[in-house]
């Protein structure tokens, strides 16, 4: 399989666009914001990598965005940036297929809809909020804003959402079902998620997110969208390279088959329930990096890893793992920038039940 990556659009806690992503990677750190949270009568401040969607207004008018909530705005921003990065005009989107992965869907609007019911009664439930609370609202808004009339798919299964959705995007291209796919991910932070984290995990450690401390809980919540324009191989050596493989599996059956020639980007994001699986299966021989401290923890973070992998291929460079990411004995962690040579890059993500997805990219 060789699916060309032609453009990247990304927005998250680090900022938006490939240039700002690169700045954060090279700086080897990114600072979360702090949001107020009430839990068990305590007023807390929780670090969260929040995404600012104001830049969407460069692409889409305020009037067209009036019913588009934060979840769909992040996705729309990612989509527009990906098309721009690929040198495509929005009006070229008519035959595009749209594939979106989301771990939790449109959570803020889901709870805003419940607010409308709780505040004013069942008869005052907001139909606009209900319509926006469905998982496929982001894909729907993207198709409407860009007039994309090809097949449209939204996939949701927590940490496996990205690899599962990308699998279909690639299949559609390989089967010549479509010629181009706008593939991406979106997940948002909401106060209920913050509250749930407090209840499940307690306060985030003062040292911040240290995902390589694989047996510890240090996750910091994040949100954002990462989109890619994908096509079949046209023989023209796309700078971001190709997606060549997507593997699925279950730790209980067997671990991922990892090629010696792979740089591994781990989706370890400070949750110990999934951290333990990385500890079991990462070979010491493979160069390994983790970038999650740059954008935080959310189910579709592996799309951010895929973006960083594509950027690495474009520059033929392995970026150093962020500072303060922690350590785990037996792992060959890349802590200084170095040449990628001709390695392939595999982005590996485990879910808390041992399920995994691995996306491999290779240069042209």
């Amino acid at each position, binding site marked *: 399989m060789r699916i060309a990556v032609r453009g990247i659009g990304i927005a998250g806690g680090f900022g938006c666009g490939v240039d700002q992503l690169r700045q954060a990677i090279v700086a080897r750190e990114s600072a979360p914001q702090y949001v107020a949270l009430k839990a068990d009568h305590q007023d807390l401040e929780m670090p969260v990598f929040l995404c600012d969607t104001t830049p969407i207004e460069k692409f889409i008018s305020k009037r067209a965005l009036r019913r588009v909530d934060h979840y769909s705005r992040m996705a729309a921003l990612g989509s527009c940036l990906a098309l721009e990065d690929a040198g495509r005009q929005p009006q070229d989107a008519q035959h595009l297929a749209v594939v979106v992965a989301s771990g939790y869907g449109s959570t803020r609007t889901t709870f805003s809809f419940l607010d409308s019911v709780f505040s004013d009664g069942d008869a005052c439930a*907001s*139909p606009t909020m209900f*319509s926006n609370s469905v*998982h496929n609202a982001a894909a729907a808004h993207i198709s409407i804003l860009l007039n994309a009339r090809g097949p449209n*798919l*939204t996939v949701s299964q927590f940490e496996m959402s990205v690899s599962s959705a990308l699998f279909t995007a690639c*299949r559609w291209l390989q089967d010549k079902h479509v010629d181009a796919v706008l593939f991406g991910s979106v997940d948002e932070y909401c106060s209920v998620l913050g509250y749930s984290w407090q209840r499940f995990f307690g306060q985030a450690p003062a040292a911040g997110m240290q995902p390589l401390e694989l047996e510890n809980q240090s996750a910091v919540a994040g949100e954002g969208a990462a989109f890619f324009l994908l096509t079949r191989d046209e023989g023209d050596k796309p700078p971001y390279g190709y997606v060549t493989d997507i593997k699925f599996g279950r730790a209980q059956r067997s671990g991922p088959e990892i090629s010696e020639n792979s740089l591994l980007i781990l989706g370890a994001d400070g949750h110990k329930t999934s951290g333990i699986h990385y500890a079991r299966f990462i070979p010491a021989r493979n160069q390994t990096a983790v970038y999650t401290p740059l954008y935080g923890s959310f189910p579709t973070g592996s799309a951010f890893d895929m973006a960083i992998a594509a950027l690495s291929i474009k520059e033929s460079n392995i970026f150093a793992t962020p500072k303060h990411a922690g350590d785990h004995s037996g792992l060959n962690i890349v802590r200084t920038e170095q040449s990628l040579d001709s390695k392939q890059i595999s982005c590996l993500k485990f879910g808390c*039940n041992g399920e995994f997805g691995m996306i491999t990219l290779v240069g042209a």
Partner: protein
Amino acid sequence: MNSTPTVAVSGIGCLCAAGMNMQACMQSITGNGCAPQPPTRFSSDHAVAYPVFEVPQQYSFGGAARNSDTLLTADFALTATLEALADAGLSRADLQDKRVGVCIGTTVGSAMNNEDFYWQYRQGRHPDMKAVTRFLNSNPAQVIGQEFGLTGPCQTVVNACSSGTDAIGLGSSWVRSGICDIVLAGGADELCRVTYNGFISLMITDESHCKPFDAERKGLNLGEGAAILVLESDDLCRRRQHPRRAVMLGYGSACDAYHLTAPAPDGRGLKAAIATALAACEKSVDDVAFVNAHGTGTPNNDRVESRVLNELLPGVPFLSTKGYTGHTLGAAGAIEAAFTVACLEEGKIPTSAGFANKDRELPAHPVQHETAVSGAVAISQSLAFGGNNAAVIFGKGTH
């Protein structure tokens, strides 16, 4: 002649208000059906109790008490899967040495919208976190994958009302392309106060029994349930000498790119989806025995569908089965695919429950009596919020 591998449908499981299994459902839809009732599992303060099609109270999961660690949607999906596997003559052990994928459509099954939990949270109380863990444990495709220890592709499709049709279409491509030997494909959804209030707020629900394509139609009734099809490589099916119930021939999908909730008046997405599905299996209008329409009973949907069917498939009999099941959202496309296979097997389609009076504004009308159908293939189609349109085409299993 299409040289790509054939995808067999070797087993079906189905449960909804019409019945607890496929046989009971078919008996219901070819008989008197059942009427929707005010919901019993939740209440609301609407002036009117909009009726729904609930799965009967005596529901049980394989005879055991309901597993309250997962949402009802996941239980529906598992129950239908067990029936489908039994129908396909496949044991758990049979799945272990094969490449088995799972593709399931849902809406509620992927939503964290537990009202009790959120109410307590809003009040500043200390809610039990079980509602959250239940949600995290209930992703339908993951539940099925975990239950059977499957390691193939696993996908939960959340395309609103076309999810079930999309899941079957997508799953069949995994078999056709040789990635999987077997795919468990379908959809599941449960009734829930949140979607109940949501649809009522959109003013597209009927206070009485829904009337698909009828002149007096006012809207839909919500329903719940699940259906799973065992999609299998024809080669494997033949080797293990199991009969095929049908063959899954084609899938098409397209987006209207028009509006968040209303279908494009010109039906452009649905036309593209049907055309793609027909082209994929190299079939033409003349081959189509019947169409299982989406037919929700809303003024807009039925108007668009009638126009498209009249334009693309003039004279082809069609029906809506939502008068027997309600609109089961993520499960709808799967339940209707199951019914489509069964009707193709029987060579006849039932009347569309709820349809009595032709709407003079519509160019095409569903069948008003049980109708014998001939033709090699049948189409099941769905239209969804967000403008998704999907169509799947089944052919007869026996030659």
